[in-house]
Structures are given as structure tokens and as C-alpha cells.
């Protein structure tokens, strides 16, 4: 933790986030797409932790009880939510696979226009 400053973490987070976003758009396998989304979520977690760690005492905290450690709390909840989304997403992908033996998202445009 010594030496690095906040900017480094934020930059890393931003790069991870951007890679994830681009991945969502260029990949065709829903599982991979979802992995990219997970990457974005992890980038968010990194950002949260970085902010929480470097939260300056001069920051205009609202002085409410919940503001302390709320960054870390948020990270845990994000992880939980991500897990839930994984479960549901894999379930949906399984259902589609059972239905059409094929999970390419570019094959799925029954509905358009």
C-alpha cells in the first residue's frame, strides 16, 4: 500500500472496466459476455476499495453513521449480487441450451424491429 497513490488504482479499475465493456460488445458466447460483466464488477470493487482506503479525512462526509466503512460494505454486497446474477444467468443459459443446443447470442434475434 505504500507508494502507490489513488490514481493508480483508479486507472487500473478504469482499464479493467473498459476492457470488460468492450468484451461485452465483441464476444458472442453469453458465458464469456457474463465473465466480462464480472470483470466490470470487479473493477467497480477495486474502485470502491481504493476510494475507501484513501478516503481523506478532509472528504465532505455527511457525518451519518452509515458513511464509515460503507465502501467495504458495498464491495461485499456487490460480490453477493454478482454471485446471484451468476446463478440466475447460468440457469437461463442452461435453459436456452436445453431448448436449442446453441448459446450464440448472435443467433438470438427472433424479436426485433
Amino acid at each position, binding site marked *: 500500500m505504500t507508494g502507490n497513490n489513488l490514481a493508480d488504482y483508479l486507472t487500473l479499475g478504469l482499464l479493467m472496466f473498459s476492457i470488460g*465493456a468492450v468484451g*461485452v*460488445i*465483441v464476444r*458472442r458466447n453469453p458465458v464469456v*459476455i457474463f465473465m466480462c460483466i464480472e470483470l466490470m464488477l470487479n473493477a467497480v470493487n477495486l474502485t470502491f476499495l481504493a476510494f475507501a482506503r484513501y478516503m481523506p479525512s478532509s472528504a465532505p462526509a455527511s457525518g451519518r453513521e452509515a458513511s464509515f466503512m460503507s465502501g467495504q460494505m458495498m464491495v461485499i454486497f456487490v460480490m453477493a449480487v454478482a454471485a446471484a446474477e451468476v446463478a440466475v444467468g447460468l440457469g437461463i443459459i442452461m435453459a436456452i441450451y436445453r431448448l436449442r443446443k446453441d448459446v450464440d*447470442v*448472435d443467433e*438470438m*434475434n*427472433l*424479436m*426485433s*424491429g
Partner: protein
Amino acid sequence: MGGTNIELIGWVPALPLIGFLVQALLGKRIVDFFGERFGKKLMGTLAVLPVFAAFVLAAGIGMTLSEMGPLANNQVVTYFDWIRISGLHVPYEIVVDPLSITMALVVTGVGALIHLYATGYMAEERDYTRFFTYMNLFIGAMLILVLGNNLALMFIGWEGVGLCSYLLIGFWYKDLANAKAANKAFIVNRIGDWGFMLGMFTIVAFIATNAERISPRTDRLLSFDAILPALTTLLHDHPAIATVIGLLLFVGAMGKSAQFPLYLWLPDAMAGPTPVSALIHAATMVTAGVVMVNRMHVVFEFSPVASGWVAIVGCVTAIFAALVAFGQTDIKKVLAYSTVSQLGYMFVACGVGAYWAGMFHVVTHAFFKALLFLGSGAVIHAMAHEQDMRWYGNLRKYVPITWLTMTIGWLAIIGFPYLFAGFYSKEAIIGGALGNHHAELFGAPVGVYTGWLLLFGALLTSAYMTRLTFLTFNSGAERWMNPATYEEAGTDHHPHDDHAHAHRHHAHHGEDAHGFFYTEEEMARREALAPHDHHHGLTVEHRPREVSPSMWVPLAVLAALSTGVTGYLMHHGETFKHWLYPPTTYNETGLSMIRNEPVVHAEALTGHPHGWVGSALVFLSVGAMLIGAIYGYLVYFRRLPAREGFDLKRWSGFRRAAREQFYYDGFMLKFFVTQGGAAVGNVLAGMDKYVVDGVVNACGWLASGLGGFFRQFQTGYVRAYALVMLIGGVALLVYFATVGQGVAR
């Protein structure tokens, strides 16, 4: 009785609505529970009772009001707030003044009688309770219309009665003609509503913009007791605005009250059951327009132009409908056109400033036209639902009571001097018109012209009503027994063939307009399927029998009301006029201290022109009546033309033209209603043509073009969507970074 508390007025509309709920929720169950006969009796009683109770209550309140004297008899009962948004406040409030109470009495009184009649007339109807559900709902809505103290409530009632009329016309919706008639009524009335709404918005906008000039300041921009004084103050120097508002409101009145361009739904509305025709399409709903013009008469008093148009439209309607009535052979159709014509009379009265005369005629007309319709219903009932007068004749032998009462109705409508009610009101209207100094168009005193034309209209009225009476009750032989003596069209074949012929004839003739929900082919198929001669049992052996008491008792009561007693009491000493428009509330300058309404011209109010016309007025109207009656007697009873070897064929052209309403109806339908498949679309098409003349269509093309363009982005690919979202987000951020400080305060 006189001590009835005014606060109770809320129960007058509430009672029929409660009855409506009872019929709607419990009706079928009760009938099933108590069995067909007793159940129907019970529900019939439960349908009549609330209306009658409302009548008693209204009568009591009316007495209280009459004791209050002219200065105080304008009460407003407020219940609770309805709408309170910034700058507009509309409470639930009921106005208790002579006008509203008069209408409430007419609606509940005549309504109760017709309900009673309907219990007998609809006895073998399967959906007995559904019928009375609609009827009670109609009474409630009509009472809201006449009692509501603001335009919004009036509009609610306005739509409500429209809905009930729509439902009741289409009551036998299995029959195609009824469905189509109902749809025509629906479509045409939308046009009227459009006018009403625009007028309403104009009033609100106008008062809101000049709010600082009215005192006391108010945000009840729709309540009569607030806006009438305000309009009185403001319209003095905005005659143009007065004209706009007046004309817009009058368009609404034209739709509801079946005036000339928009009248064409009313004759087809006769497809509904006869009590409906009597209650809604003769006595009450169609007079809503007159009531509204009376309510808002301040506007019209400031605009001679609008008044002039009202008078002209009324006059044209009166003459036109009277002419059309000659061509009709269906007894209810004749009465329908006579209703349209009489409504024209009322609007002439309103146009020339004799508002009270208009209301006077509303009341008397409610009595004798309801009587005539119910009588015709009795005749149709007795004649196995044959409505074609050409197969009647000499019925007075079979249905004496009906004959007697309908004769009274006939004398009343043709205005038999002094002994019958119609005479007084009609004479008041014609007098008011002849003595008019109010309605002006391009500097011409149109009122006077309309007065003379109405005299001719009275002649026509008495002629065709005489025709109806004689063809039905007198004129020698029973025609349905030996078709050979078929009098009018010269051809002789049996009713059924003729009926079929009539229908073939209808097929290309406009009055069977296109249905709401049908495409052309659909129509054709249904034409084939629809049971044209449903309950159609008129045979040579048929012997009509007099109807049951529950049906002729109302006839008798209405006949009594149609006699001169009513007219005399209301007309003598100008009782009714001063009840509606008390002279003491006006000062010389024309503006009233109490109600703050401008005075109508003295001559118009008196309803008696000066000079020789004034003295000769009675003789003129009586003369017109006599000429018409004698013409009818000679032609339809003595058959003078036939005896003198006069060639009837020469008149057949006029008859056919008249039967087809001089091709106006067919033209209108081809033009507006027939277009597009289903008539919801037709409403749109008609509106487009009426309102913005196809501009909307152009926009429609453009819009769907743009829609197609945007639609291309909806590729259906998840990744494309994600990309669009991403681009949108980036654009959002860039916009944040670059723009800013834009809209916010």
C-alpha cells in the same frame, strides 16, 4: 312539503344511481332467485321507485325554491373538492335554481312515467334487468347534467347520457341495424363533444388570462356562479370572443340536440326500444343542448352573430326535418323527424333571445312528444311490431285509449289554440322570433325571418302529424287486412314482401350506415345473416288488442299534462318566464344587480311583437295550423287527390327524395363514416376531415416513416443494444463535460 331542505338535492341524482347499482349487481340474481315473472315484477318496481322518489324530492325542493322569491332562488350546494390543481379548482357542486329544478322535474317526472310504461313494454324481454340498468343510469347521468354547477360536471353528465343512449340504441345488438345506428350516434356525438370541450377550454383560458379584471378573484373557472358574472364583466369589450365561445358551445349543442348538420343520428336511433326513444330521444337527452344554451345565455347575449347562427340553424333544421317527415312511412321515423323539427323551434327561441320560450317548449314538448312516442309504441305493440303506417288504418276501433291519448298528443303538437299545451309554447317562440331585435347577421334581423319561416314550419308540422294520425287511426279500412287498398305507393303486395323490398331499398340507402366495428364485406355478410323481420307477426288475420294498464296509465297522465291547462298555467301572467328570468333582478341599464346577467331585450322576453303582427300573431299561427290540418284531412282522410283523379306519381319524386332525407344522409355517410374499415378509424377519419383537413394524415405518413427509420436500430442483437447503450452513456458524459448551465434556473 314546501319545507324540503335544499341540501337534500344531492339525493335527486343519487337515488337513480343507487337504483342503477341495484339493477346492475343484483338484477340477474334476483330474477333467477324469484323466478321469471315475480322477479321481473320486483325489478321493474325497483327500477321505477328511485326515479319516482327523486321526482317527489325534486318537487319538494322546487316548492321551497319557489317560496324563496326571485332574489334568493339561486343556491349552490357544494359537497367536496374534485380537482384542485394550480390555478383551477373544481368542486362537486349542485346548482339549485329555477332552470335546473325545472329540468330535474321534467327528467324525473317523465322518466318515472316512461319507466312505468317500460315495465309493461319490455315484459317479455330476456335482458329485462340490463335494460333498466341502463335506464336508471341514464336518469342519473341526465340529472348530473342538468344539476351540476360547473361545466366539468355537465360534461360528465353529457358523456354519461351519450353512453347510455349508445348502449340503449344498441340494446338489441344481435340486430345489425341497431348496432350500426348506435355506432352512428356514437360517431356523430364525438364531433359535438369536441365542440363542447373546445368551448370549455376557451372559457377557462379566457377567464384565466383576464383574471385580474374580475372581482372577486376566483379559481373556480368552470363553476357557473363564478364564470357567468365574470363573463358578463369581460365579454363587454370582447364580442369576438363571445362569438367564438358561443359557436363552439353551439356545436356541442348541435351534436346532442340533433341540429341540422349533425342531426342524422337521431332518426336511426329509433332502432332502440320505444321507451328509449320516448325518454332519451324525445323528452330529455336531446334537449340538453337547449338547457346548455339557456345556462350559458350570457355568452350568446353578447354575441348577436352567434345568436343569429343559432336561430338560422334551428330554423333550417325545423323546416328540413318537417319536409323529410312527409317521406317517412315508419311511424317512429315520422315522430323522430318531428322531434328534430321541434328541437329546431327551441333553438330558434334561444337564438332570438327568447330563452324562456325555448325552455317552455322543452317542457311542453317533453310531455306531448313522450306521449306520442309511447302511443306509437302501444300501436306497434298492438300491431305485432309492424312499424309501417301503410299497414295500419282504422285502429281507433281496436285501441280506443291509445287513439284518444294520441289524438290529444296530435292536437298538442300541431298547436290547437288555447286547449292544448303546444299552442302556448310554439306561439311564444314564433312571437319571440317575430318581435326579435337581438339576433343579427350582417346587419339583417334574421330573427324576424326565422319567425315567418317557423309559421310555415307550423303548417308543415300540422300537415304531417295529421297524416300520421289519420293513416294510423282513421282513414277507413284496416289496410293490413286487404293489401289491395294500399294507399300511398300505389303498389299492392303483402307486408312481408314489402318489408323485404323496403330492406332491399335500405341496402343502398344511406340511413343504414356502416357499423362501428364492421368492414364492408363484414357488413354484407351480416346483412345476409341478420334477422330482419325479428318478431314480425303481422298477418291478414291479425286483430290488435288494447295494451295493458301499466302501459296506458302513463299515456293518460301524459295526455292530461299535454292539455292546455299546463300551458295556460305556465303562460298566464308569464309565470314561467318570470320563474326562469325574474324581471325584478334586472335594472334599467340592462345589467342585473343580483345575478349580474345582462337583460335580454324586452320584446324578446315578452315574446310578443309590436304592431299589427303582434295583434295578428294568434290568427297567423292558428291559420297555419288549420291550413296544414285541413290539407292532411283532405289528402289522407278524404283522399281528395285520388278521387279527383290527381296523378300521385307526380309527387313520388318528392316522396322518394324526402324518404332519403334529400340524399343528405347518404352523402354525409359516404363522405365521413364509410371510409376506412372499422369505425373507430372512421371517427378518426371524420375528425381529421373536420378538424385539420388531412394535415394529420400527412403527419401520420411522416411519423410512420420516421418510426420505420428508428426501427432499424432495433436489430434484435444483444451486443448491438449494449453498444447503443454504451454510446449513449459516453454521449451523456461528454454532454455533461461540455454543455451545462443550460435549462436549470
